[in-house]
């Protein structure tokens, strides 16, 4: 289940993020939401950074959004050198958060700000999965 051949490496889940990474391995994208002020929280954590409530729960995200901004990396060293060129992006999810990720499944020169994208999951090491985003095909 990989939409790209971008590098992956092990995810080091913590007690705050284990549920999130368990879900990506099952093909689900979770978000934290505050039960006190209803803020949708990114990145996932055990408290709400808006009201400091610790009453937070997981919700299933739609997994869709738009490209808020992106850049095409054309020079790199190490692991990513072999993946050049690739797209680093901030995707604005339907629920509000703008999240760092890659845009895959499209020629790098065809990516545009405002483009509709949806999450894809890519196998990482030891059963975990990374989230990346690909164009919504109509």
């Amino acid at each position, binding site marked *: 289940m990989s939409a790209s051949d*971008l*590098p*992956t*490496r092990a*995810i*080091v*889940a913590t007690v*705050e*993020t284990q549920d999130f*990474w368990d879900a990506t391995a099952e093909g689900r994208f979770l978000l934290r939401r505050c039960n006190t002020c209803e*803020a*949708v*929280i*990114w*990145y*996932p*954590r055990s408290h709400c*950074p*808006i009201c400091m409530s610790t009453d937070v729960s997981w919700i299933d995200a739609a997994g869709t959004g738009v490209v*808020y*901004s*992106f*850049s*095409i*990396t*054309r*020079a*790199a060293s190490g692991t*990513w050198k072999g*993946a050049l060129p*690739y797209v*680093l*992006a*901030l995707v604005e999810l339907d629920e*509000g*958060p*703008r*999240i*760092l*990720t*890659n845009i895959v499944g499209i020629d790098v020169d065809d990516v545009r*700000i*405002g483009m509709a994208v949806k999450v894809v999951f890519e196998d*990482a090491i030891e059963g975990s999965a*990374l989230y990346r985003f690909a164009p919504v095909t109509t």
Partner: protein
Amino acid sequence: MGAFEHPLRYIPDRTLAQVHAEVAVGALRDAGLSIRDVDAYFCAGDAPGFGALSMADYLGIDARLTDTTETGGSSYLAHVGHAVDAIAAGHCHVALVTLAGKPRTGGSQPGGSGNFGDAPEANFENHWGGSVPGYYAMAAARHMHQYGTTSAQLAAIKVAASSHAQHNPNAFLPKLVTVEEVLASPLVADPLHRLDCCVITDGGGAVVVVSPEVARTLNRPERAVAVLGHGEAIRHSSNGRIDLTHTAALWSGPPAFDQAGVTPSDIQYASIYDSFTITVLLTLEDLGFCAKGEGGRFVESGALEAPNGVLPFNTDGGGLCNNHPGNRGGMTKIIEAVRQVRGDAHPAVQVPDCELALAHGTGGSLATRTGASTLILGRSS
């Protein structure tokens, strides 16, 4: 205030601590003081070992106050602001701030900001091949999308910096470049070209901040520079609602201007942090030198070119052409502003009767979390 910039840009034969020591001595000599006079020491993440503890020991400073505020390249301007406050509160009289780095000769390389393994954000940021150019390029792409800013306008910033660097014999890139040459240089991370990026240099710098009483004892009014205002702020990912079109300068500028009792139009010279051309453009807007979205038109008008532009900037050539020691450009921003207020800049780029200067630092990464610190410097009355 004493100030010193290390003259070298490639230093294979000295340790990082040695470079700290060389710039410390340079700044103290410039101030007319000795290491024995220093009672407060400031350094940031570039200092080796246990930061201020290791370095105060190595340098021989009996510090009664230390400050290791770490906001990347903006740290050193924050240190100066903190030193002024600590002096005003009576906690110290002579504060030394040092920076050194050796990225060309074995020191830390300009890596992806935020690649701290145990940071709470680590797994949500470290899997995407992020790099410093890539992150700043996203800020440029968004500004272009929202305001119509062009690569040629960004290139005008590099051209202005290079026109100043040609007068600096120590500059890493002393050659004048054209807009066309910037646009023809390879794309590192679209839309940023290689020549939109700052240089990578070994080097360092230091400043000394003294109390008014010590300044009077030194009795060198022609060398004295006053810190008239200071502001600082951070801008982080804001619960995922990050806005790439501004930096934390939006918040560090106003308190600095207010404290100094001046406005952006009063500033005669500005040292603007220039890790990339886009960093300059966003900062000019955020500090109020032009309206948000107007930065492209402002810079292509020649506003930044010394000595006759509306706002001569980075007359040493800046990080874009002269020096970005240790991948941290804040210290050199202070030093060139001090030169301008003293009338010590190269005659070709010296702003006539420069009485009021601004220095601004930007640290971290615009696409994640970034620090800002603004200083207003002027003639000491």
